[in-house]
Structures are given as C-alpha cells and as structure tokens.
C-alpha cells in the first residue's frame, strides 16, 4: 500500500453511500476545526458534539460502501486516500467556517435537510441504510434544534449579529440547491426504493428554513442561481486545502498502521 490515491468502483449504491459519507466527514471536520476556539465553552462542547455525530455517520456510511464495493477499501482508505476530484460531498459543507454565524447558518441549512432526510430514509428498503438513518435521525434532530436556536439568537440579537447572520445566509444560499440534486446514478436507487427522492423533501425544507429565518428577523433570499458540482467532484478551492491537512499523515507514512 502506498500513499497514492486509491481507485474506487463507483456503482450507484457505492457512490450514493460515499456522497453522504463525504458530506458527513467534511462537515464534521469543519466543526472539529472550532475545537478550543469557540465563542463560549458551551459551544466548544456543542460543535464537537455535532462533529462527533457526523464523523460517526461518515464511518458507518464508508463501511457500508466498502462492504458493497468489496474491493479492499475501508473507511480510512476512502477518507484518507482519495484526492479532491474523488470526493463527492456537497459544496455547502466544504465552505470555510468563517465567523460563528457562518458556521451556524451552514449547519442550519444542512441539518434542516438532514433531519428530514434521515427520517424519510428510515423507510429505505436497504436494511443497512435504514439502520444508519434511524441512528442519524436522532442526532440530526439535535443538530437542527441547536442550529435553529442560534440562527434565531443571532438574527434577533444585536445589529452586528444580525448583519453577520444575514451575510452568512446570503453567501451560503447558493449552495442549498445541491441538497435536492439527483442524477442518473440516483435514479435507479430511487426507483428501487433503496433511497428517497430528495425532491420530496424540498417543500418541508423550505418551510423549516423560511419559518426560522422569519422568526430570526432575517430575509430569505428566495429564488436565485444555485451552485452545484460537489457530487461529481467539481469542488470549490477550499476542499483541497482541507484535504491536505486531513490526509497529511496517511500520505506521509505509506502503509503504516495507526
């Protein structure tokens, strides 16, 4: 085993699991960057908590992908030995932490989706995905509650916090369209009821988000241009830097066990 990148045979199901695993890992990693630097100790705890949940979800999804792919890969090979173009996560989750408002709004947009998503996925005909969903749903319920509360506090707090929260909403909005994106690879899985059609969650997501933003006295950007590309490896420039940090040890010590 060298420190070069692995190759992955991306069947529809493997690709599907990797995409969600990458979402969870990258967002979890971003949250972990806060550890020791949060605005209050309670938030050091809370952000780490969410990060741990997400890294846990990533591990289960990677392990499932490895089992389905059956090609000698495992959670760590997926996480540490794929390059930026092999990563399949949403552009939303790789966006830098920025200030606390940006981290919270990113979490809120993601969790508002993930919470409904995992609930729906509990009905998957794929037993493993259904089991992962059951566990993840409990976690995401906390994530959406925690991030919603902060969106409201920041939006309806001081003029400065309102401005920062609104900037975050405006800047991150363009990355929310990708939450609902599907492609040919997904279509068969949806038809077989192994996974849900995210389009079915759009109305609920919009309700949740507009409701919370309204309570937070924040303006909702409405219909506008949406970015995409993460699902097929066309990332922003931010992900490469994150990966050079995340993967540095595995890349520098080929074949070692840790």
């Amino acid at each position, binding site marked *: 085993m060298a420190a070069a990148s692995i190759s992955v045979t991306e069947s529809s199901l493997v690709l599907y699991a990797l995409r969600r695993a990458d979402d969870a*890992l990258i967002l979890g*990693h971003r949250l*972990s*960057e806060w*550890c*020791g*630097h*949060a*605005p*209050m*100790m*309670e*938030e*050091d*705890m809370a952000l*780490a*908590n969410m*990060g*741990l949940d997400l*890294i*846990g979800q*990533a*591990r289960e999804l*990677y392990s499932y992908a490895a089992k389905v792919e059956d090609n000698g890969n495992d*959670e*760590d090979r997926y*996480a*540490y030995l794929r390059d930026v173009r092999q990563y399949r996560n949403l552009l939303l989750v790789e966006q830098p932490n920025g*200030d*606390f408002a940006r981290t919270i709004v990113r979490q809120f947009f993601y969790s508002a989706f993930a919470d409904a998503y995992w609930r729906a996925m509990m009905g998957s005909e794929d037993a493993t995905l259904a089991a992962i969903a059951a566990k993840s749903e409990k976690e995401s319920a906390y994530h959406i509650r925690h991030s919603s509360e902060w969106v*409201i*506090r*920041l939006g*309806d*707090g*001081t003029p*400065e*916090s309102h401005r*920062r929260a609104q900037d975050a909403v405006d800047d991150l909005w363009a990355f929310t369209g990708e939450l609902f994106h599907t492609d040919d690879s997904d279509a068969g899985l949806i038809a077989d009821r192994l996974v849900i059609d995210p389009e079915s969650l759009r109305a609920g997501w919009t309700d949740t988000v507009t409701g919370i933003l309204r309570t937070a006295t924040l303006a909702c950007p409405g219909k506008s241009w949406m970015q995409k590309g993460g699902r097929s490896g066309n990332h922003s420039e931010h992900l490469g830097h994150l990966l050079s*940090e*995340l993967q*540095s*040890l*595995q890349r520098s*010590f080929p*074949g*070692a*066990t*840790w």
Partner: protein
Amino acid sequence: ADKSARFEARVANEERIEPNDWMPAAYRKTLTRQISQHAHSEIVGMLPEGNWITRAPTLRRKAALLAKVQDECGHGLYLYAAAETLGTSREELVDQMLSGKAKYSSIFNYPTLTWADIGAIGWLVDGAAIMNQIPLCRCSYGPYARAMIRVCKEESFHQRQGYEIMVTLSHGTPEQKAMAQSALDRWWWQCLMMFGPPDGESQHSDQSTRWKIKRFSNDELRQKFVDATVPQSDYLGLKIPDADLKWNATTGHWDYGAIDWQEFQDVLAGNGPCNRDRLAARRKAHDDGAWVREAATAYAEKQRARRAAVAA
C-alpha cells in the same frame, strides 16, 4: 474561633465541607485558586491536543481525539462550576487566566510536534494528572471531590487511549517507533515536573495537607508515577531519557535523575515554547466570540421583555 474549631474538627474527621458551610477565608481562597487553576488547565489543555484533531491519522483516532478534547472542555466547565460555589464567577476566573494573572499547568506550554505527542500526552500527562487527582476525590471540599471523581474516571479512559496509541506506534514502522521515542524524550521530564517542586520547597503544602486538600507530598506522587510508568515504557520497548534511572531493591522504587528545576521556573515565568501562543489563542477565541455572547445576551433580554409584556 468556635466556628473555626468546628471546621477544623469536621475536616479532621473526614467530613465534607459544602458551599453553604462556614469555612475560613484562607481555605476558600486556596481552593478557589486551586480549582480554577485546574479548570484553566483543562481549557488551555484543549489546545495542544486540538492541534492534531484535523490531522488525526484514522477516523477512529479522529473521533476519539475530538471526544477527548471535548471531555476536557467538560471538565473545565464543571470545575468552574465547583469554583463558583466558593463565590467567584466563571467570568472573573476566566478573565484572570486571560490576563495572565492566574496560572494553568505549565505542561501545556509545550508543543505537540507529531502524532506520537498525542499518545504521549494521554499516556504520561494524563497519567501524571490522575496520580495528582485521585487523592483529590477525597478532598475535604465536597463539590471539588465530586468533580474529581468524574474527572478521574474520564481521565483514566483517556490515559488508556493514549497508551494504546503508543503501543500501536512502538509496534509500527521504524519511523513510527522513532516518533514514539522522540515524544517520550520530549515529555518525560516535563511530566515529572507536573508534581511540583520537591518537598520542602513547596509553598502551600502544609496547610493544604491539614485541610485534607493535599494527601500526598509532591515527591511521593512523583515516585508513584515513575514506578508505574517504567514497566509500561519497558513494554513499549521505549527508553526513558534518564541515564540515572535504576531499580532500587532496598526501597522497592525506581531511582531517577535530577530534575532541571530551572526549566520549570522558566516556563512558569512565561518562557515556555508555547506560553504566548496558548494565551494568544485563548484570547483570540474570547475576543472573536464577544459579539456572539453579546447577541445571546441581547436576545435573552428581548425574550424576557416580550414575556413580561405578555404577562402584563
């Protein structure tokens, strides 16, 4: 004087003193200093290990390290809560640390250079901390004793995790083993210093012992640590960086070499490799977070006003 005698009698009798009980001002002050210093150490201690969360070499290690650092934050929180029962607010205590007035454990003024340092911190630093802290589970002050019981439980879990990292590295590639040895070389003496100055030079010990805050001398605890650690190091196949280390059949203990107390004093005086970086990082987190805390306060006040308006 009556109160004082009764207090001393209760302590001597191994009873727990609780927040609302009468206590001497010096007891309150000593404990406030010790508990808050302990809390600061947990919080500053997040930084050297936090430095490797984003680079942990496997997802399992990453999750374990993140959880560990989170635990430290939790320890900090309930130690501040214990200190607050003595009448000083967390905010005030934190300000003392940020201004450099209050100390935290000097061990966190050393850098984590490689992944092996994460193993060494768990194995040695947490190991030394546990030696110091287990007697505190029977401290005369109730809230501190109870906090310590919980802290010690989690710390021993961390200590085992750290040791396991060292086992993996020292059984790994030659590069990994060298990394492990280098970490032991760099952390060993610093850990011995964690027990504080040699007996006789320690300032607060006599009274603390009488008050059942301190139950073993610095040198006793240091010896316990050395005795416990030498066989572990042997198992790892690593060499403790002390030419004078040898088994003393007469005493039944490991004799160790002279500690460089000048270095201890230097680091305490602010000249360790990371003193500036650590304080700067905590201050930055505090300053950058000011607007968030203000927003939370402003929102809470608005909500209170709204509820009051509805009630009226």
